[in-house]
């Protein structure tokens, strides 16, 4: 396999920076690409070389396969890392990269194809002996057929897009009367989102946990599982908080799920880092949901409890080297939690906000990791996803990790736009979260009370005083005092005003 010394990072934001850091630790050079909106983004400044790839909209830049491959060629790269999102799970891109004589840092295109078609993935998992969510393993042709299958499975059911992902083209159906309309809606949405309207039927499981297994596979025939991540705290299928390990897994269940995950990866000839998502029922029964054939946003929690740098391993695996994960390290140590800090306003139905990040104070201290992609002065635009950074903590126990996350969230200061910070803080202090009583309906059940916009009692007085003193400062600035009173140096308008008033007394 070709020697790799320079890698094109075909992504932006925090994950581009994360990959560039891994390149540098592996003594590889990194080439960044950027759209017009990202000229000054941290990932551009962190790389050895940077190549403009087009206007701000992703279709014209980060999704432009031709430009990306040309950028890799013109800068002498041997490999392309796609990150997550954008082109990371597009088999034609993996193919095009290979045809250009470059290494695609990810699985073979065939594995992406097999897992990207959700019904084919379900058939393959069934064949490999991995339990799947009950339902059809073929697309259903029409609403009538869907109704037959739904009745067989028992309501409620989910209609899901065969080419699906991210909750698009998905409909929950409670009773037969809703089926016809839901079928049309799911088909239409799937067609618009993926260019293919095929839909299949799955039984809707009541309040499962979302538990996923991280796998790594190298070209020397090794496939290992790096345990689980619990990602049950979601909003409309977007994960908000992830942790490892899950309180719901005994060592025996972890072993069983890990075996299922490695069997799943093996069945599609998987290479590199991938994630098998499962729904886990209260009795320990688990069902294959889907496989993400790429690096996952929440990979850091696994890194912290397994002591493995997943991105560095990806780079080594791509270069044909054996992975450095030893069987003895395959047990989790301590507990890690990740909060996705996004530019969404939790008190306004998580509405995304845009604007300039006027000020950023990043938390630090023991056990705190900040994977950010935006710095002070950068603008958060509507062109890309609203992730500002991932705040990750590690602690000896889950309780210690929660305490640490709470501390770190209180240190974090973001000025300029609303973020999800306060939501995370409230979750850390919420009793059922603290007890680990989680399932994918957590936010629906707990969210409304959690997000009642009541400020904490202890901050009311200091905030009132700050507001009054700022108003006093504003007033003093608007109405200049008599000339004789005017100081020549003004460290703070209000401090001055206080001094002046003090002098008058």
């Amino acid at each position, binding site marked *: 396999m070709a020697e790799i010394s320079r890698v094109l990072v075909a992504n932006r934001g925090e994950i581009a920076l994360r990959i560039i850091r891994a390149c540098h630790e592996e003594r590889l050079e990194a080439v960044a690409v950027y759209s017009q909106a990202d000229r000054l983004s941290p990932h551009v400044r962190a790389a050895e070389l940077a190549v403009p790839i087009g206007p701000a909209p992703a279709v014209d830049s980060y999704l432009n396969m031709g430009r990306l491959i040309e950028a890799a060629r013109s800068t002498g790269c041997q490999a392309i890392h796609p990150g997550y999102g954008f082109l990371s799970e597009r088999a034609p891109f993996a193919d095009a990269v290979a045809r250009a004589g470059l290494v695609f840092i990810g699985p073979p295109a065939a594995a992406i194809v097999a897992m990207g078609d959700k019904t084919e993935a379900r058939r393959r998992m069934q064949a490999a002996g991995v339990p799947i969510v009950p339902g059809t393993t073929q697309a259903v042709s029409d609403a009538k057929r869907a109704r037959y299958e739904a009745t067989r499975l028992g309501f409620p059911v989910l209609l899901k897009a065969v080419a699906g992902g991210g909750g698009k083209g998905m409909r929950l159906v409670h009773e037969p009367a809703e089926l016809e309309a839901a079928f049309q809606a799911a088909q239409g949405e799937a067609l618009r989102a993926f260019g293919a309207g095929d839909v299949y039927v799955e039984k809707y499981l009541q309040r499962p946990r979302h538990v996923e297994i991280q796998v790594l596979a190298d070209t020397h025939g090794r496939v290992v599982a790096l345990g689980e991540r619990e990602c049950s705290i979601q909003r409309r299928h977007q994960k908000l908080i992830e942790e490892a390990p899950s309180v719901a897994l005994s060592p025996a269940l972890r072993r069983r799920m890990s075996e299922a995950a490695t069997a799943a990866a093996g069945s599609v000839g998987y290479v590199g880092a991938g994630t098998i998502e499962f729904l886990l029922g209260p009795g320990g029964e688990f069902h294959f949901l889907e496989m993400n054939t790429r690096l996952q946003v929440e990979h850091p929690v696994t890194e912290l409890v397994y002591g493995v740098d997943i991105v560095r391993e990806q780079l080594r695996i791509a270069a044909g080297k054996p992975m450095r994960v030893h069987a003895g390290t395959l047990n989790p140590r301590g507990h890690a939690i990740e909060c996705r800090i996004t530019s969404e306003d939790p008190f306004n139905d998580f*509405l995304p906000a845009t604007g300039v990040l006027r000020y950023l104070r990043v938390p630090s201290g023991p056990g705190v990791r900040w994977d950010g992609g935006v710095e002070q002065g950068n603008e958060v635009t509507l062109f890309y996803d609203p992730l500002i950074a991932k705040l990750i903590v590690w602690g000896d126990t889950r309780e210690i990790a929660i305490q640490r996350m709470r501390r770190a969230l209180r240190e974090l200061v973001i000025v300029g736009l609303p973020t999800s910070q306060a939501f995370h803080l409230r979750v850390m202090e919420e009793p059922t979260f603290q007890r680990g009583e989680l399932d994918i309906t957590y936010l629906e059940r707990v969210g409304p009370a959690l997000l009642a916009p009541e400020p904490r009692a202890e901050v009311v007085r200091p905030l009132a005083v700050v507001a009054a003193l700022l108003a006093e400062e504003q007033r003093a600035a608007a109405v200049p005092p008599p000339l004789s009173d005017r100081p020549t140096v003004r460290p703070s308008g209000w401090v001055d005003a206080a001094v002046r008033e003090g002098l008058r007394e």
Partner: protein
Amino acid sequence: MKYFVRIADLPQILEVEVEGGRVSVAGAPYEAHLAAVPGTPLYHLLLAGESWTVAAQPGEGIGRWTLGVVGERIEVEAVDERTRHVQELTGRRPVRAASGTIQAPMPGLVVRVAVTEGQRVEAGAELVVVEAMKMENQLRAPRAGVVAKVHVAVGEAVEKGAPLVTVESPELSG
């Protein structure tokens, strides 16, 4: 000078009197010292020995700020006595989102319009869905009323602040 301070949506108004290096909050006196942290939007408050770091971002209008403290982000408004008196005489105080027109909170694409003009809507009813940052965002009626005007159509790109739907409700005045 005396200020009347509103914190977020709390019902009570706090009276804060500023006098030299002392403040009194609802009549109780405290020593207070506020210092701007140079080069940042941060202020450090010492309030009777308690240490608070507060991020301040000016809001829309005199006396309004968005303050950040211990991970929370809270809107405050401080008005002096005279301003408050004027507000009382005119029988109104500034209210957030007093308008019956729902505006686009961010730039995006209108992907669904759920109401038609003349339609009666309940508080919380979906009006328009705007797609931005890969997400569909439902904009809901803040109160019950009648849809007076739909300003947009499906497929239309809207800027931040663009009017989407006007809902008229009887209890809006006052």
